[in-house]
């Protein structure tokens, strides 16, 4: 480790424009050796643009990048890697069939003659893993791994190049709390070894917890950099959105309506390494938000899909308003008023190559006369979503791919709540969206609750669950491990239930 006075990586006056949009406007930013520097801001604030410039994927229109005080120009990622910069992207790029070691050493396999030295490869990956305290098995095939382990593989790949500067782009978006904790330990170890770490996230609590300094980006400009000591989440939230929307934490407990959703003793097979459902029962009442917490892979996805009709039950029964829907198809359940916001908006909820008019009709496409799409209705519905959620630059004919992630999520939620449903199943509704968007999504969920919908909220964000839910169910191993009121649901109690211990 050098003791140079220069920051490890520095941006001076970086400006980047796309057509009429200024994504980065005279950005000054630096990260020091042995520091975790948090970067937060709304979707579209320019975080990704700045990181892509750091990583050589975009060239700035103006400004300079300095590594250890020396100005550099990156023509591509290879230049940036050569300068000691490593980046872990939000979307993983892994070869499913390959083992962890093969993925980590892809393109730089240790050779013995013309053959890959598999033993040396496994050993060197295991060595890196041990140094940083990873738990992942280097001989496991990636297709068998969960989200957290996959991310470790991505991180291992970056660390195998021994970078001085590590950029993590929203690494915790898909992680459970315990997986996130593991990641934070790795980040701390990197810092202690003298690495400079840039940590991008939406979650204010995380930056306040793990970062040494925090920089807030808004509309392409730096709003300020604060030390951890002076950073509390409310102040940060205010910096991010400009002014903090009214927080609606303390609501009167909703009067308990009649039972809308009744799930009785359901069993279902699980995907990947998940437990599936093992005789789970729950009921949901009108005008109630039921939070479902749990470590990923304990049956949440299976339960959500079983309610919506995407997963068949091996036994058990599901009724909505007294009607048995156990064997009903998705369209039949939609007619009963079940709506679903799936966790994977790109892969399941939206067609990114289709325009807003057609996306507004997904799920209701068959409901019209003469077997034709009702584009007039789709147009009205899409326009209403755009107005309700104040989508910027809304253009009904451009493909949804051109929207930011937060806009896509608002569109999806808006579509599933365009009429007040009887049962609204929402899965990780604010994952990867900024504070402002999350607030408008929360407001919409409350509206649905006020309209007497039964909202089942699945989330890995415990604060979100606590803040919105009237009751909290904790899943473990495909069963309900416990039921709590929001007041009882402190981290320790939740954590014990989530890990399968009895309270």
């Amino acid at each position, binding site marked *: 480790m050098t003791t140079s006075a220069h920051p490890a990586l520095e941006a001076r006056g970086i400006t980047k424009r796309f057509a009429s949009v200024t994504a980065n406007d005279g950005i000054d930013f630096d990260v020091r050796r042995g520091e975790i520097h948090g970067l937060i801001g709304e979707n579209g604030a320019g975080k990704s643009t700045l990181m892509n410039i750091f990583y050589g*994927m975009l060239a700035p229109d103006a400004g300079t990048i300095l590594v250890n005080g020396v100005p550099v120009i990156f023509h591509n*990622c290879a230049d940036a890697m050569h300068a000691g910069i490593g980046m872990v*992207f*939000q*979307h*993983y*790029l892994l070869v499913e069939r390959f083992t962890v070691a093969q993925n980590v050493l892809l393109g730089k396999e240790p050779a013995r003659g013309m053959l890959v030295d598999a033993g040396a490869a496994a050993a060197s990956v295991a060595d890196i893993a041990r140094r940083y305290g990873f738990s992942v098995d280097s001989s496991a095939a990636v297709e068998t791994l969960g989200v957290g382990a996959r991310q470790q593989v991505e991180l291992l790949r970056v660390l195998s190049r021994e970078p001085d500067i590590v950029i993590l782009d929203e690494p915790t978006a898909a992680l459970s709390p315990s997986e996130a904790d593991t990641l934070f330990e790795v980040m701390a170890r990197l810092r202690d070894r003298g690495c400079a770490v840039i940590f991008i996230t939406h979650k204010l609590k995380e930056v306040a917890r793990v970062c040494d300094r925090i920089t807030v980006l808004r509309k392409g400009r730096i709003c300020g950099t604060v030390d951890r000591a002076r950073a509390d989440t409310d102040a940060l939230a205010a910096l991010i959105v400009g002014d903090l929307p009214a927080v609606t934490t303390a609501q009167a407990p909703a009067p308990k309506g009649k039972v809308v959703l009744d799930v009785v003793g359901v069993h279902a097979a699980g995907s990947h390494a998940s437990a599936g459902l093992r005789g789970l029962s729950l009921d949901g009442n009108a005008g109630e938000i039921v939070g479902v917490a749990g470590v990923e892979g304990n049956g949440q996805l299976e339960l959500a899909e079983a309610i919506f*009709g*995407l997963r068949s039950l091996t036994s058990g029964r599901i009724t909505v308003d007294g009607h048995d829907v156990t064997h009903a*198809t*998705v*369209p039949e359940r*939609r007619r009963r008023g079940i709506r*679903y916001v*799936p966790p*994977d908006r*790109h*892969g*399941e*909820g*939206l*067609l*990114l*190559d*289709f325009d807003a008019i*057609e996306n507004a*009709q*997904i*799920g209701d*496409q*068959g409901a*019209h006369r003469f*077997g*034709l*799409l009702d*584009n007039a209705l789709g147009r009205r519905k899409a326009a209403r979503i755009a107005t309700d959620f104040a989508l910027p630059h809304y253009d009904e004919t451009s493909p949804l791919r051109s929207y930011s992630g937060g806009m896509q999520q608002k569109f999806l939620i808006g579509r599933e709540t365009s009429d007040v449903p009887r049962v609204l199943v929402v899965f990780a509704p604010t994952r990867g969206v900024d504070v402002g968007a999350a607030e408008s999504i929360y407001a919409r969920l409350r509206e649905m609750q006020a309209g007497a919908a039964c909202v089942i909220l699945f989330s890995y964000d415990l604060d979100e669950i606590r803040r919105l839910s009237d009751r909290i169910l904790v899943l473990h191993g495909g069963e309900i491990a416990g039921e709590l009121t929001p007041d009882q649901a402190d981290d320790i109690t939740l954590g014990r239930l989530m890990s399968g211990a009895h309270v």
Partner: protein
Amino acid sequence: MRWLVSRTAPVVLALVVGAVVVATTHANPLDAYAALVQGAFGSLEAVSETLAQTTVFIFAGAGLAIAFRAGLFNIGAEGQLVAGALCAAVAGAQLHFPAPIEVVVCVLAGAGGGAIWASIAGILRARYGASEVITTIMLNYIAALGANFLVAGPLRGSAFAPETAAIDPAAMLPPLVPGTRLTIAFPFAIVSAIALWWWLGRSVAGFELRTVGSSERVARYAGISVPRAIMRAMALSGALAGLGGACEVLALFHRFNAQLSPGYGFTSIAVALLARSNPLGVIASGLFFGVLQNGALSMQAQAGISKDLIAIIEGLIILFVSARWIGARLSVRHGGQDAPATEQLAS
């Protein structure tokens, strides 16, 4: 402008590389292409013949476009075309209705033959997950060899050659331009392509088909029956190829023989790819291949260039269309989203 450049770039590049190939044989590429254009457009007869040749490409190309949009790599247009042609020829020879009814019945027989042939692959894919690429290729061989057997034996209707009996004159499609082989099959093909384009964009079934092609997970989420959409797309795709084959019989050959299609079904893959799987675009790309097909003979006669040059250009076009797609995939760095190949080709 950019749109025009990106759509025509594969054609231009293929013609340029084709010219280089011609030049290596010490012939003048410009002479070759001039002879080709002359052969395709040089007279009323030439234009009529070009449009007659275009017909089968529009039918089969539009059918393949439908399959590609549903995410199905139907390689079996050749077999479906043969099945349709054989059914139309048998219906035309065996049935004897008054003229308009006879024509309609024979056309429907052709569409049905192609649809059934394609549905074998469609059902195998929808029910058992068998790759349609493999099954349609195998069904091509079965169709070709099966048809050879049938016209040599049970269905032989001619003493001189292995072919079916001539169709009833009532089944022959009336010519548009007297004295040429251009019949009402050509406008019928254009209307079919336009109708398909409209259906794909506006109907619920078309939307479901495109959704399945874009993402089967979204389709299931939207409550669409994926197997049904796949079977429907394959049947429709085969019906269109079958129509192409039927029109060859009813308009041009008036009987079925094994030489009926010199690989039109395979050329139609290039037609659909060049049109980016848009049925409207298929009209233009079908015409382009019709020009090549018809101009090739006079190119060979007048400029002394083998008509195999056409096969080279066709191969190059597929290569360049695919290269654009590969290039697009490579440039999406860290996009994370994996779309099926056929959908990429369709976009």
